[in-house]
């Protein structure tokens, strides 16, 4: 017998959220969605969640199981019990307001998708037949085009938790869908937009979205591809790109980070306003004795690091 500890919220009935336990001895092979349906249909009809295709393609049943975002239809309930505990905790997706029980409000999620101009921009007149695209070019958008907009990545994104302006993994993966498309003509405009605050460079590289993505879309890898395009296109007049370049330069030069130089190079040597904004932070660090060494020493084998860089052609 398993216990499903479900986070309930129904502002029509009571103002706060609470957990309610349901017992169900589920059969072998039951998915989390099967279990929720059983509970809804035999124990409490007011239990509310979204679902539709139950085959991991529509993206409706995103929710959290044991604290992590997943598709309820895709996950075997037994897998969620693996820890030996007989309790499965079910909660709504994170980083979104809750409407009722496991149903969240996707408004901001979709607004951010809208922001990346999520449609092909091709300035040429359409040919009589299909536009040509090689299998290699197709492969560049193969992974990103499997996205089902379920919100699992958005829910568990660590950056979004502290910065509501961040576009989030799904919208950025959607952007890569077009930046990577050989038929799209707006690469540079898109990359410039995506380099603004809230864009690709605000990703903290934690990789949580790759863990949570139920499809092969794996947003963080798509974000990395966007960053590569940004550097190749020379769209580097922004803190994020400068930070990445300074990082590389420092490691190549001395085998490790020059922590006092990075913030300065990230805002830019000629960015007086940006530099001034660093001063209070620097002073506070000084007071707490957390300031990095002023004189930067290379590691002993810095030469080897340089060699690695050369070998990989940077």
């Amino acid at each position, binding site marked *: 017998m398993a216990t499903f500890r479900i986070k309930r919220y*129904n*502002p*029509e*009935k009571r103002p706060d959220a609470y957990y309610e336990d349901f017992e169900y001895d589920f059969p072998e*092979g039951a*998915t989390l969605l099967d279990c929720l349906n059983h509970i*809804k*249909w*035999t124990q*409490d*009809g*007011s239990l*509310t*969640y*979204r*679902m*539709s*295709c*139950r*085959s*991991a*393609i*529509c*993206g*409706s049943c995103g929710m959290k199981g044991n604290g992590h975002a997943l598709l309820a239809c*895709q*996950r*075997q309930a037994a897998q969620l019990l693996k820890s030996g505990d007989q309790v499965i905790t079910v909660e709504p997706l994170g980083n979104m307001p809750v*409407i*009722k029980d496991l*149903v969240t409000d*996707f408004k901001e999620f979709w607004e951010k*998708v*809208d922001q990346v101009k*999520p*449609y*092909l921009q*091709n300035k040429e007149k*359409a040919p*009589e*037949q*299909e*536009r*040509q*695209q*090689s*299998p290699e*070019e*197709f492969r560049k*958008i*193969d992974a990103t*085009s*499997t996205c*089902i*907009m379920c919100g699992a990545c958005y829910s568990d994104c660590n950056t979004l938790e502290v910065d509501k302006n961040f576009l989030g993994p799904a919208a950025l993966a959607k952007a890569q869908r*077009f930046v990577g*498309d050989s*038929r*799209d003509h707006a690469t540079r405009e898109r990359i410039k937009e995506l380099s603004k605050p809230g864009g690709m460079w605000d990703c903290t590289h934690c990789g949580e979205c790759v863990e949570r993505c139920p499809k*092969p879309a794996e947003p963080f890898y798509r974000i990395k591809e966007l960053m590569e395009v940004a550097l190749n296109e020379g769209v580097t007049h922004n803190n994020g790109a400068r930070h990445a370049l300074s990082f590389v330069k420092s490691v190549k030069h001395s085998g490790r980070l020059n922590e006092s130089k990075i913030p300065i190079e990230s805002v830019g040597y000629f960015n007086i306003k940006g530099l001034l904004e660093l001063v209070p932070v620097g002073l506070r660090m000084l007071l707490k004795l957390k300031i990095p060494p002023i004189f930067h020493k290379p590691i002993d084998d810095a030469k080897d690091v340089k060699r690695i860089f050369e070998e990989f052609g940077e």
Partner: protein
Amino acid sequence: MIKHDVLIVGSGLAGMRSALEVCKDLDVGLLSKVYPSRSHSGAAQGGIAAALGNSEDDSWEEHMFDTVKGGDYLNDQDAVEVYVQAAPRVIYELEHFGCVFSRTADGKIAQRSFGGHSKPRACFSADRTGHAILHALHEQVLKNAKSIKIYSEWYMHQLVVEEGRCCGVVVSNVRTGEVEVIHAKAVIFATGGYGRVYKITTNAFASTADGALAAFHAGVPLEDTEFVQFHPSGLYRQGILFSEAARGEGGYLLNGNGDRFMEKYAPSRMELAPRDIVARAEQSEIDAGRGVNGEACIHLDLRHLGEARIMERLPQIRQLGIDFIGVDCVNEPLPIQPSAHYSMGGIPTDMHGQVVVDADNTPMAGFFAAGECACVSVHGANRLGTNSLLEATVFGERTGRRALEYARSADFAAFNEGHEKARVLNQIEEIFQRDGTESYNDIRNEMKEVMMEKCGVFRDADNLKSCIATIQGLQERHTKGRVTDKGLLFNTELYEIIELGNMLKMAEIIATTALARQESRGGHYRTDFPKRDDQEFLKHSLVYQSEDGMEIKSKKVIVTKYQPKERTY
């Protein structure tokens, strides 16, 4: 009060494609009980048909013949002709919209073989073609946000018909529970199918016949509802779809003895015979005790394709097997069984998507339908794989265009809004007042069970009569159910109860028309009438609601190029 020039109900391929047509000139409301990108079109996997000839010479005539033969000659051939002729153009257009397609080495849209098609004409995006097209159309809808307003998670209850003209719909905002009337010069239904009346189905929970029933209750007949397609490869016990592309790429079907049994049923096409034939073959093997381990399942064997091919062409199928039953098709065969998949029948329309109400094609002004919910009929008695995405796209466009033309010169009709709204409010209130003890779960399960057993792949008069009696009993019990959620906010239980009511009626309609058609044709097989009977039954059925139940009339089939012949593969 909400007003749109054209209101579209349903936002899958047909709904969104028609929205893109209408928005060229008028303002559109696009209503979905889910969210557009969650529509069931996205679950289509294998491909979309068109005689592009990218890997082998092909022609629209061959596509037409295959479609008509596949449909067992019940298709209206004038409609089939415009449909297959439009196919290459609409697919190029999807490609121009940005749809992601798998490619040939020289950069063209790749094409693969499919059941019943004599040439490789299924254009595909790995094994997620429906998803690729759905998202491409969704992108275009977002691009046209100025003229297309999306109503996500709104439920459509009924049509408003005033003096024979359709002038709006009554809907609920699921989130707030508020009932609203939407005025429209024209209404397009693109509400999909109703596979959920069956126990084993590939269909989404949302495929519940709401559109068909709203039309039926407004006095529109339903056409050819006895023809329900069973897909040969739904996951055993669950019905989750494993695309026909698995066989298109060379997969085998094996019975419990390990034999490729299709040899006996369709020696020339083997696993790539049309779905009705393959599904019947599977069921025959199962019924004869030759299922795998004596169980009601067959094996879909892909092992000989190799991991590389599977990962390139069928990656999603592999993942579905791993996630849902822990079977990796690279190393083990997948257990499958026939699963209710597609409704050939539906709301009768002409070839412009105009809904018609009788055998003379009398239109119901202002009312249009496209996609699976409609019956044009291009599929006849059995649809070929990859022809449904095409139908949704071609007739989405045609219907949108016709609705646009109509709405340009039409006015908003006046009607008693309060009266229309009250009908729905009363229905909801009546449900909330129910204090019965019947479990809706039991009613739903019994409906699905009896439809599967008695109105499934094989049918006969006794079983169908008993099926109808059971369904009528369930309809009675439905009014005495136990309701637990009586709130306004996101009350999914309420909509499930209404949907179940719709499905119970739909089930009765399917079984009633199946009983009346005393022959076997395409997806409808009567063990008591195992032969096709062109003399008596080369005709469409139209079922109407009548004072004392249902009345079935007929409508002639349009035969142009291809005279009915015996159908063998």
